[in-house]
């Protein structure tokens, strides 16, 4: 499903964020990505979502080589990935409903079908009562959950989560991780970058550990 072949990502001014990294996640797999601040977790996720391109090496998603994906097909690639961003990335002047609906609207789904899907997603993160609010009027944890709802609303086969519980209390973090587990159960592939080692250990899924751009530990895989 997701495969990295000797991938290096170099930021000209700052050196290598990822160094000669190879890994493979099978379809329907759920894995955690850990590592110190600046280890390269976000960079790895960005390469999968084609938000950045590797300096060297290849990234394959769903068997297709992202390096040779024509530009006009990038949006269709992104629609297959539900991404949760570390900085939420919500539109401040749209309501929670509109923010969550965005991927569906962008995909051209008729308004009628959208409402049902959006409400289902908001219900899953416990924010149904806030659908009319604007992001700036939400607490950070609430914003983070809106971001999660937006990532899952399109029912993508892949979910990438970048520190999805950084602003959530322990109980809520556990609920979100349980939610991810349920997605895993229905066959969605998940890669979750997190600092919440406690929950990671508790849930015992495959765990990848990055250190300064290198994969230094991999609890599963082959």
């Amino acid at each position, binding site marked *: *499903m997701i495969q990295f072949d000797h991938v290096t990502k170099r930021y000209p001014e700052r050196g290598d964020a990822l160094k000669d990294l190879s890994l493979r996640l099978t*379809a*329907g797999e759920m894995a955690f990505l850990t590592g110190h601040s600046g280890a390269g977790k976000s960079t790895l996720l960005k390469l999968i*979502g*084609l*938000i*950045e*391109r590797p300096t060297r090496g290849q990234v394959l998603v*769903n*068997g*297709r080589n992202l390096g040779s*994906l024509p*530009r*006009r*097909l*990038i*949006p*269709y*690639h*992104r*629609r*297959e990935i539900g*991404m949760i*961003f570390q900085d939420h*990335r*919500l*539109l*401040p002047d749209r309501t929670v409903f509109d923010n969550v609906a*965005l*991927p569906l*609207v*962008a*995909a*051209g*789904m*008729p*308004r009628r*079908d959208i409402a049902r899907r959006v409400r*289902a997603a908001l*219900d*899953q*993160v*416990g924010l149904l009562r806030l659908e009319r609010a604007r992001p700036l009027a939400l607490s950070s944890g609430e914003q983070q959950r809106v971001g999660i709802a*937006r990532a899952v609303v*399109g*029912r993508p*086969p892949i979910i990438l989560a970048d520190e999805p519980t950084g602003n959530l209390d322990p109980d809520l973090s556990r*609920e979100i991780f349980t*939610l991810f587990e*349920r997605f895993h*159960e*229905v*066959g*969605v*592939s998940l890669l979750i970058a997190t600092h919440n080692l406690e929950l990671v250990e508790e849930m015992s899924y495959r765990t990848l550990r990055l250190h300064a751009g290198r994969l230094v530990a991999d609890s599963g895989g082959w």
Partner: protein
Amino acid sequence: MTASRHRQRRGRRPPPPRSRPQRRRVGLLQGLRGWFEQHRETAHDTLAGLLARPLATGMTVAAIAIALALPAALYLLLTNLEQIGGEWERSAAVSLFLAPEVDEARAAEIAARLRQRADISTVELISRDQGLAEFRAYSGLGGALDQLGGNPLPVVLALYPSAQAQSPAALARLVAALEALPEGDFARLDAQWAQRFRAIVQLLRQAALLLGAMLSLAVLLVIGNTIRLEIENRRTEITIMDLVGATGAFVRRPFLYSGAWYGLLGGVLAWLLVALAGWLLQAPAARLAQLYQSELRIQGLDLQASALLLGGSALLGIVGSWIAVGRHLSQVEPS
């Protein structure tokens, strides 16, 4: 947090690996309906968005309107000046003094013949008596002429060149042709004022061209600038839409509609400004017309010019946004 909705999804299996992402995940009919809905919604939402910030929108629209109104007003001014010019050049006649022996009946024949010429629009016959009266009035030499014991003046034909024959060269050719007539004595061109007027109009036209060029640039700059800043303001929005899988067309659409609305609203306001200006200039124009005993009226924008103004302004808005969006879209591509 409930799982009730979630259960519906149980059992769904991930799609098999594909070498390219699917372009559509919704049915064709559904997709088409969505597409129309999106356009209608975008057109509506962008207009509502503009009207929700009346001050900001008003400022932008006013700037665009003024930039648009000025070339339109200039076009009107030139049209009207040419009309005045036409009236004015008409008073720049050629006087053909016929030979003393030609009588008035013969002169009328010559006049009729001359009226056929393409370079002459009107011929007026000034009889000997009329000429004497005019001469008397002009020179105040009534007494001296009376001593002559008769009217020594010839019949004169006042000729008004047609519109195509107003240039100095054409007039000179006309004068030569007239003097070559056997019945003609000599032709005098009352051309000084025509020349002066032409020089003035030329100066104005050159000034107008310069102004027109600058103003067209200003229109482009104001619209382009507005949309550019607008887009910079909404850069986050564009980036986020990009990240959730919106196509370029989808991202561009609201900006194109905004641009079209800005342009169209600016065009409408410009049309009103021009109409107002025309109305305000009606009085001095009428005063001018009186001096010519003419029917000169300031003409407003006709249907064609109005359509051009409105359509052109909307188009300018779209083009301006297109360029601006294009530049910014390329900035959120992966590097």
